[in-house]
C-alpha cells in the first residue's frame, strides 16, 4: 500500500512543481511588451497598425498578471495552447508535427549514449591507472568540454563537406517526396517505424543514414557524463568488503568485476540515465539547428528569436513535465531493483 501512497504523493508533488514552472515561465513572458505578444493572435496576413491596439485590448494583454495567468490556465485545460507564429498553426498541431523528429533522435541516441558510457566506464574502472584508464578519462573530459555546436559543425565539415557522406536533415529529397506523398501512412511520425509499417525499407535506411551523424555527435558529447559516473561507482563498489568475500570464495576476476561490482555500480547510473534522457530532449535545440532536423528544438530556436510566446510556454511546460515524470519513473525503477529501498 505504501507504494501507491508514494506514487500519489509524488504525483501531487509533480503537479505542484509544474504549477511553479508555469508561473515562472508565464512571468518571464509577461516581461515582453504586449505589442509583441499580440502576434500570437494574428492568424492571417496583414494587420493595420491601428488594429494592434484594439487587438491588445481584445485579448486582455494589458490585464494584471494573475488575471492573464488564470485565463491562460483556463485555456490550457480546454486544450487551447494558442497559436504559434513560427509553426504557422495552433501550438498543439505544431508540436505533433515537430515532436516525432526529436523523439526519434533521442530514442536512438539515448540508449547508445548510456551503453557506451557504461561500457567505457567499466573498462576504465577495471584497468584503473593503466594507460587504458587514462585514455578513456582523457577522452571523457575532452568530450565533456566540447561545445555542442562546434563538434556537430566539425563532423559536418569533415564527413559531409569533405567526404560527402551523412548529409544533414532528416531525409534525402527523394525520401521526402515519398513521405509527403499521399500513399504514405504516418502512424507514429517516427520515420524508421513508419518506414517499416509502410514496408518501405529504403525510407528506413534513409532515415537511419541521416541519424548517424547526429547520434555520433551526441554520443561523444554526452557519454562522458555516464562514463565518469560509472567509473566512480564501480571503483567505490570494488573497494567494498563484499568484494573481499567474493575473492575469498574463489570468484574469478571476471565474476568479481561484472557480477559483484558492476551490479552495485549500475544503480546510480540508472538515476542519471533518466536525467540524461530529459536533458537530451531539452538540449536538442542546438543539435537540431546544426543538423537541420525540424524537431521541437529547431522550432524553439526560431520561436525564441521571434518571440513566439505560446510556443515557448508550451514547450517549457512540456519539457518540464517530461523531466518530472522521468524522474518519478526512474525513482520507481531504482526502488524496484535495489533491494535495500522500500518506498514510503
Amino acid at each position, binding site marked *: 500500500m505504501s507504494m501507491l501512497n508514494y506514487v500519489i504523493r509524488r504525483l501531487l508533488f509533480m503537479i505542484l512543481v509544474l504549477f511553479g*514552472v508555469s508561473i515562472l515561465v508565464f512571468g518571464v513572458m509577461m516581461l515582453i511588451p504586449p505589442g509583441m505578444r499580440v502576434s500570437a493572435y494574428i492568424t492571417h496576413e496583414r494587420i493595420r497598425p491601428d488594429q494592434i491596439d484594439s487587438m491588445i485590448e481584445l485579448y486582455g494583454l494589458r490585464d494584471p498578471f494573475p488575471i492573464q495567468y488564470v485565463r491562460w490556465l483556463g485555456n490550457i485545460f480546454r486544450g487551447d495552447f494558442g497559436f504559434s507564429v513560427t509553426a504557422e498553426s495552433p501550438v498543439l498541431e505544431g508540436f505533433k508535427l515537430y515532436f516525432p523528429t526529436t523523439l526519434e533522435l533521442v530514442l536512438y541516441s539515448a540508449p547508445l549514449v548510456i551503453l557506451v558510457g557504461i561500457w567505457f566506464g567499466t573498462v576504465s574502472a577495471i584497468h584503473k591507472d593503466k594507460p587504458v584508464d587514462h585514455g578513456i578519462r582523457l577522452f571523457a*573530459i575532452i568530450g565533456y568540454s566540447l561545445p555542442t555546436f562546434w563538434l556537430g559543425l566539425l563532423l559536418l565539415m569533415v564527413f559531409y563537406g569533405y567526404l560527402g557522406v551523412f548529409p544533414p536533415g532528416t531525409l534525402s529529397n527523394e525520401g521526402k517526396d515519398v513521405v509527403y506523398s499521399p500513399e504514405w501512412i504516418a502512424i507514429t511520425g517516427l520515420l524508421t517505424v513508419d518506414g517499416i509499417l509502410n514496408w518501405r525499407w529504403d525510407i528506413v535506411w534513409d532515415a537511419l543514414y541521416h541519424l548517424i551523424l547526429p547520434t555520433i555527435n551526441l554520443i561523444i558529447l554526452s557519454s562522458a557524463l555516464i562514463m565518469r559516473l560509472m567509473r566512480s561507482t564501480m571503483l567505490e563498489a570494488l573497494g567494498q568488503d563484499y568484494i573481499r568475500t567474493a575473492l575469498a570464495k574463489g570468484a574469478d576476476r571476471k565474476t568479481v568485476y561484472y557480477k559483484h561490482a558492476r551490479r552495485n555500480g549500475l544503480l546510480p547510473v540508472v538515476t542519471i540515465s533518466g536525467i540524461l534522457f530529459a536533458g537530451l530532449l531539452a538540449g536538442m535545440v542546438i543539435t537540431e539547428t546544426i543538423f537541420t532536423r525540424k524537431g521541437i528544438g529547431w522550432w524553439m530556436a526560431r520561436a525564441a528569436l521571434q518571440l513566439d510566446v505560446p510556443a515557448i510556454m508550451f514547450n517549457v511546460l512540456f519539457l518540464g513535465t517530461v523531466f518530472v515524470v522521468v524522474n518519478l519513473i526512474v525513482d520507481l525503477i531504482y526502488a524496484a531493483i535495489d533491494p535495500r529501498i522500500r518506498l514510503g
Partner: protein
Amino acid sequence: MSSDSKPTLQPASGDEDRVPESTAEKPQAGHPRWKDLGFSLKRLLKNPLTIIGLTIILFFVFLAIFAPILAPPPRPTDPFLMPHKGWKIAPSPPSKDAPLGTLPSQYDILYGVIWGARSAFKIGVLVVMANMVMGIILGSLAGYFGGLIDEIIMRITDIFYAIPLLVMGMAMVVALGRGLTSITIVLIILGWPTYTRVIRSEVLVIRDMDYIQAARASGSSHLRILLKHVLPNSIFSVIIVGSMRIGITVLIAAALSFLGLGSDAGYADWGQMVSTCRNWIVGPADNRLGYWYVVFIPGFVIALFVLGWNLLGDAIRDVFDPKMRRR
C-alpha cells in the same frame, strides 16, 4: 560492544598504524581541515592534468589582460568590435594580416579570439561567483534551519530544476533584450539551484555534529555558528562544484551566443563567431575544406578554455573529495 568485561589487548599506544588494513575513518565524514590544505595543494600541483589545466587558464588570462596590447582595438571606445579589412563576404585564409584567418565579412579571427577571452572570463567567473553566493546563503538557511524554510527553498529548487535550461534561457534572453549582459543575468538566475543543494546537504551533515551542539549549548547565536563553524566546513564542496561549473557555464553562454542571442555580428564573442561559419562548412568544389579555419578555430578556442577549467575542476575534486584521498 564488549569493552570492559573481557580482557583485551589495549596497551597505551597512540596513533593508529598507517597500514591500510584498518580503515581508520576521520572523525568527520567531511572535508579536510584547513591545515591539511598544504598537503592537498601539493598533491594538486603534482597532478599533470592540473598543470595542463592551469597552463591553459593562465594562457587565457594572459590573453584577456593584455588584450589591448596584443590586439589594439580599431575603435578604442568599443574594443569588442572586431576590425575588418574590406567587406568581402567570403572568409579569407590565414595570412600576414590575419594570422588566424578571417570570418565572413573579413573580421579578424585572432582579434576575436583575444578579446573574446575577456567576455568568456567575465561571464564564467561572474555567473559562478554570484551563484556560489546565492547557493551558500540559501543552502545554509535551508539546511540549518530546516522546517518550513527548507521546504520552501527546496520546492523552488525543484521547480528550477524542472525548467529546460536552454529553452528557458533563450526565451529570457530575448525577453530582456539580446546581449552578453542579458546572458549573464539569465545564467545567474537559472544557475543557483545546484549550489544550493550541495551546500544544503553539507550543512545537514555538519548541523548534527557534536561541536555545533556544544556551540549552541554555550550560547552562540545562530549567525555566529553559521559563520564560524558551518560555513568554513561546507565551503569546500562549493569550490569543487563551482570550479567544475565554470566550464559548463561558458559552454551554455557560447551556445546562446551561437543561436544569435549574444553580441551582434562583428563583435568579439566566441559563440557568435562560430555561428558565422554555418554557411561556410563546405568550401568550393576543388577545396572542400577550404574554410576550415572559420569552422575550427573559434570553437576550438571555446573547447580549450572549457577544457582548462574542467581539468582544473577535476583535479580539485580528486584532491578534495574525502572518498578518494587515500592513495
